[in-house]
């Protein structure tokens, strides 16, 4: 095969798109700069919020506070700030809805007398569960109030000569081990997802421009009258898209490494393993995917009749290969040999292993690289076949 045509097309597309603002922005700025900042920002926010929230004392507004002095003492002894207010039900609802108070405890006026008579004493707790950040505080207040109730019950049993232990047959002890690791999984998933997505975006506009765009501008027809076989033209274009994807991939991973070094990942229970060596490994895991990605996007845009149509298709279809990642994240998939055959998923799993400093089996790496390359070559071949059809001219 004569490679001169491919080389000529590759160089021209590479150079022409270097002068295209849209291609450059999507290859060099959107993915590589914005996504690491986004993730680092979210992580930083998560960390600082978790820190402040656990230290922060909870503020509770209480109505008819005077009727339950012991309960309030009990609460404030356990770090709850009490603010006395005078609300009826409507005012309480309104105060929570408008966020003037986050949590309101409504104590009935006859609270004390009901307790003394051994009648159930109702308490109303107002909060807004759609505000995720306050859920913890509400949970804590609820737990403290029930604990207070249990203590009263225990005193009553004691007064009647019954061992309170006997009425508490089960004692639940909660140990939460999920928080740090759970959050780190989420961050990792987001990071690998964004690395792969921003890699694809790097070549997206070039793929559209070189196919649908070229046809729309009317230069395709003349291009097809040159003595270069049509499939070589498309291979050159796929190659150019792939080179932009590679640039985007390298930049994105490098930027992630830099961004994460500013964020205290250790606080989320992640061993920070995103130094230069890990970054290089991540790039090596993903690099075989650029052929698949660029051929995939080229095929989609070669089908479209116009630039805009191609843009619509591509932006829809770009999410399809990254779908398995979302499932992988939800199902907590672990690296397995059969999963290494799936492009995108295998890269996700390998990258996750790299960041977690887990060992990567050479066989896994081999299967991932070779199956991704074979599928990519197949897609490139299909693109070449498509370019030989006459319908291409529209």
């Amino acid at each position, binding site marked *: 095969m004569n490679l001169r045509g491919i080389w000529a097309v590759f160089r*021209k597309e590479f150079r022409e798109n270097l002068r295209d603002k849209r291609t450059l922005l999507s290859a060099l700025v959107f993915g590589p700069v914005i996504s690491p900042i986004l993730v680092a920002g979210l992580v930083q926010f998560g960390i600082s919020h978790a820190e402040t929230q656990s230290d922060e004392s909870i503020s509770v507004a209480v109505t008819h506070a005077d009727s339950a002095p012991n309960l309030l003492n009990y609460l404030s002894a356990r770090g709850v700030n009490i603010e006395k207010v005078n609300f009826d039900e409507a005012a309480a609802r309104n105060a929570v809805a408008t966020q003037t108070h986050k949590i309101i405890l409504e104590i009935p006026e006859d609270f004390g007398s009901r307790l003394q008579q051994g009648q159930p004493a109702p308490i109303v707790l107002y909060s807004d569960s759609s505000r995720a950040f306050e859920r913890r505080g509400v949970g804590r207040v609820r737990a403290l109030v029930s604990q207070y109730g249990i203590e009263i019950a225990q005193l009553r049993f004691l007064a009647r000569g019954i061992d309170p232990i006997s009425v508490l047959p089960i004692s639940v002890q909660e140990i939460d081990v999920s928080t740090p690791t759970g959050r780190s999984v989420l961050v990792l998933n987001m990071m690998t997802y964004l690395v792969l997505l921003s890699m694809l975006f790097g070549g997206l506009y070039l793929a559209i421009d070189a196919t649908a765009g070229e046809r729309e*501008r*009317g230069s395709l027809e003349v291009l097809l*009258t*040159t*003595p270069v076989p049509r499939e070589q033209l498309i291979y050159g274009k796929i190659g150019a898209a792939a080179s932009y994807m590679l640039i985007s991939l390298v930049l994105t991973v490098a930027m992630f490494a830099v961004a994460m070094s500013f964020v205290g990942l250790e606080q989320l229970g992640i061993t920070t393993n995103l130094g230069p060596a890990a970054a290089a490994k991540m790039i090596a895991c993903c690099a075989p995917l650029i052929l698949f990605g660029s051929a995939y996007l080229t095929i989609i845009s070669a089908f479209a009749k116009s630039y805009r149509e191609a843009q619509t298709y591509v932006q829809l279809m770009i999410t399809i290969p990254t779908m398995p990642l979302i499932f992988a994240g939800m199902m907590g998939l672990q690296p397995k040999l059969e999963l290494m055959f799936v492009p995108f998923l295998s890269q996700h799993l390998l990258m996750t292993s790299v960041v977690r400093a887990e060992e990567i089996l050479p066989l896994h790496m081999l299967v991932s690289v070779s199956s991704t390359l074979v599928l990519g070559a197949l897609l490139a071949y299909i693109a070449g076949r498509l370019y030989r059809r*006459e319908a291409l*001219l529209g």
Partner: protein
Amino acid sequence: MLEARGLFKSFGKVEAVRGVSFAARDGQITGLLGPNGAGKSTTLRMLYTVLKPDQGDAFINGISVTADPLAARRSIGVLSHGAGVYNNLTARENIVYFGELHGLERADRDARAHELIEMLEMQSFADRLAKGYSQGQKLKTALARALVHRPRNVLLDEPTNGLDVMAVRNLRKLLGQLRDAGHCVLFSSHVMQEVEQLCDEVVVINGGQVVAAGTLADIRAHAANSHLEDAFVSLMNGGDAGNGEPK
């Protein structure tokens, strides 16, 4: 030398070209004349190998476009409809790129681009990006691109569309130069005056078929009308002058 022999082409149910045959000789300008939708572009596209004929064949210097399209392409230069150029390349880069696709060595294609830029008087804009070009400048770029590999045959699809008077004059001059240098020039048009001023031979196409071919004098004689436009109208109406619509 270009030759079409019994070309047929349909798109779905539409029969765009139904048995077109003609020849365009070296050292002559041949005009493909016909109303919109007559099949001019489809015929040209088969000649310059981007469409495959359903039936029939075309020959470029004796090389069959169906049997060996790559070889046929080496001796044709094409100015397609709309003359799209790459906006993010300069005119020079546009020309050099096509030189490379045609297999010219680096020194050769650079020299050739220089030569064409002088010949078409493109010096003032040749090294600016094509984004801001006028129609005339775009056409010159597309023409230079079509000529970079010194093709024996030059095919132009409605080259004067969207050009002002000066640009049309320049184009006419250039096509004359190409003819005098022994090239075979074939262009399509629906504008009578152009054909009248430029062509040595005319092929009139209507409804996907050749309705008349020959020199301007032949055409006028054929239609029994000394005015080309009237001759054209009478040919379009498929018969003698005066049998068409009332004047």
